[in-house]
C-alpha cells in the first residue's frame, strides 16, 4: 500500500505470493500465446483469402486429409497445458489450505462492516491486523451476520468468512509494511468500507505493540472465566473440577476423535466445540444423556472463540491435524500456559 501512486502489479509480501505470481506468469504466457496466435491467424486469413471484387469463387475443396489429425492435436495440446495449470494451482492451494503446525493463531470476527481481531495473547484491534514478519500466521475466522471475505491481495490469499462456521486462512508475511485488507465477499451497504490494514512488523516492534495491548489476559484465560461464569464447570470436568461424571470430560479432548451416541465419529475441532455449545444435542457423546441446555443467544461469537481457545488449552493436541509434524516444543507441560507457542516467548521460527 504505502505509496498511493499508479501501479500495474501488486506488492508480493508473503511466502505464497511468489508461487502465485509464478503460476500467473505461466498462465499469462499461455494465454498471450494463444490469443495472439488466433488473432494473427484470423486477421491473416481475412486478408490473404479475401474475396476479390471480380472473383467468382469456386466451392472450396473438402478437408480430406489432416482434419482428424488437426482436431486431435488442438485438443491434446490445450488439455496438456491445462493439466499443468490444474496441478500447479492445486499444489499451491494445498499449501494454502494446510496451516503449518507452528503457526501462531489469531482470531477474526467479521460483522457488517468491520473486522474484529483478537490475538491469542489478549490484544484486540479493529480493522487492523498486526503481525510479525516471517512467522506463520493462522487465522480462524467467523462472522456475526452475513458472509464476508478476508482478503489481503499482497499476500495473494483470501477466504470467505461464514456465519455459523469457522474457516481458516494462513500466511507467512515476508516484507515489513502496511497492506490492504479488503472484504471481498459482498456484504451490504458499506461493503466497500469494510477495509483495513495489515501491518507486518519486525519481531521487536511486534512484541512492543503486543505489550502495549490490553490487560485482559490471554484468549484461553478469558475463555476460562467465561466458562465458569456460564456455569459450564459445574458439570463438565475441566482444569479445576475433575469429579463430575454426567458431562463429558473436556481435559485432553481437543483434537481427539469422539464417538457419538449413534456410533458415528466426529473430530473434536473448533467447529465441534462451537456446535456443542450452541446445539448441545446435535451430537451427543456416547454414554451421556442429552441434558445440556443450549447456550444459543447467551454467548457471542467472540465469547465462543474464547471458549474454544479454553477447551483447546485443556487438550494436549494441537488444532492442526498432522500431529506427527508438530514441533515437540509445542507440548507444554506447564498447566497455566496454553499448549501452543503463544505468549511473548519467541524463539524465532524453526
Amino acid at each position, binding site marked *: 500500500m504505502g505509496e498511493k501512486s499508479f501501479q500495474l502489479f501488486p506488492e508480493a509480501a508473503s511466502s505464497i505470493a511468489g508461487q502465485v505470481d509464478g503460476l500467473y506468469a505461466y498462465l499469462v504466457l499461455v494465454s498471450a500465446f494463444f490469443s495472439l496466435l488466433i488473432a494473427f491467424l484470423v486477421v491473416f486469413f481475412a486478408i490473404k483469402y479475401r474475396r476479390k471484387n471480380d472473383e467468382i469463387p469456386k466451392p472450396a475443396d473438402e478437408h480430406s486429409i489432416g482434419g482428424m489429425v488437426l482436431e486431435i492435436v488442438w485438443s491434446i495440446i490445450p488439455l496438456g497445458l491445462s493439466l499443468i495449470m490444474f496441478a500447479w494451482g492445486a499444489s499451491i492451494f494445498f499449501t494454502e*489450505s*494446510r*496451516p503449518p503446525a507452528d503457526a501462531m493463531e489469531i482470531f477474526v470476527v467479521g460483522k457488517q462492516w468491520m473486522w474484529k481481531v483478537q490475538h491469542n495473547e489478549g490484544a484486540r484491534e479493529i480493522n487492523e491486523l498486526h503481525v510479525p514478519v516471517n512467522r506463520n500466521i493462522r487465522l*480462524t*475466522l467467523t462472522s456475526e451476520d452475513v458472509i464476508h471475505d478476508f482478503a489481503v491481495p499482497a499476500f495473494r490469499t483470501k*477466504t*470467505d468468512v*461464514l456465519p455459523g*462456521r*469457522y*474457516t*481458516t486462512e494462513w500466511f507467512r508475511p515476508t516484507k515489513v509494511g502496511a497492506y490492504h485488507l479488503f472484504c471481498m465477499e459482498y456484504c451490504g451497504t458499506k461493503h466497500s468500507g469494510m477495509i483495513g490494514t495489515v501491518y507486518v512488523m519486525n519481531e521487536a516492534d511486534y512484541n512492543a505493540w503486543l505489550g502495549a495491548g490490553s490487560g485482559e489476559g490471554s484468549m484461553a484465560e478469558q475463555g476460562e472465566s467465561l466458562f465458569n461464569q456460564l456455569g459450564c464447570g459445574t458439570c463438565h470436568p475441566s482444569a479445576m473440577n475433575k469429579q463430575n461424571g454426567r458431562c463429558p470430560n473436556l481435559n485432553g479432548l481437543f483434537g481427539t476423535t469422539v464417538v457419538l451416541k449413534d*456410533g*458415528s465419529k*466426529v*473430530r473434536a*475441532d*473448533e*467447529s465441534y466445540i462451537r456446535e456443542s455449545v450452541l446445539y448441545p444435542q446435535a451430537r451427543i457423546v456416547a454414554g451421556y444423556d442429552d441434558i445440556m441446555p443450549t447456550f444459543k443467544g447467551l454467548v457471542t461469537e467472540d465469547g465462543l472463540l474464547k471458549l474454544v481457545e479454553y477447551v483447546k488449552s485443556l487438550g494436549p493436541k494441537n488444532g*492442526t*491435524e*498432522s500431529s506427527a509434524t508438530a514441533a515437540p516444543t509445542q507440548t507444554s507441560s506447564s498447566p497455566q500456559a496454553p499448549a501452543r507457542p503463544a505468549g511473548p516467548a519467541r524463539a524465532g521460527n524453526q
Partner: protein
Amino acid sequence: MANHAGHAGPHVVPKRLYFAVFFALVVLTWVTTFVSTLDLGRWNIFVALAIAIFKASLVVLFFMHVWYSTRLTKMIVMASLFWLMLLLFLTMADIWTRTWMGVPGR
C-alpha cells in the same frame, strides 16, 4: 385391434401386469414401513431408498410404459436421473469431505 405401426401408437399392456405391479407396490410399501422399525443402524436409509428406487422403477417401466417406449424416451428418463445424480452427488461430495482436511473451512 389396429395396433399402430408407428412408434407413437399406444401400447396395450395386459391388465394382469398392472395388477401385479400394483400388488408389488403395496407389499413393498408395507415392507419398507416394517423394516424401518428394525434397527439396522446406518443401513436403514439404504434399505428404504433401495425399496423406493425399486418401486419407482416399477412405476416408470410399467405404469408409464417406458419398458415399451422408444429409445428417445428411455434416453430422456436416463438423462433426468443422470443429472439428478450430478446435482446430488457432486454437492454431497463437498459435504462429505469437509472434515477430511482437519482444518475448519477447508
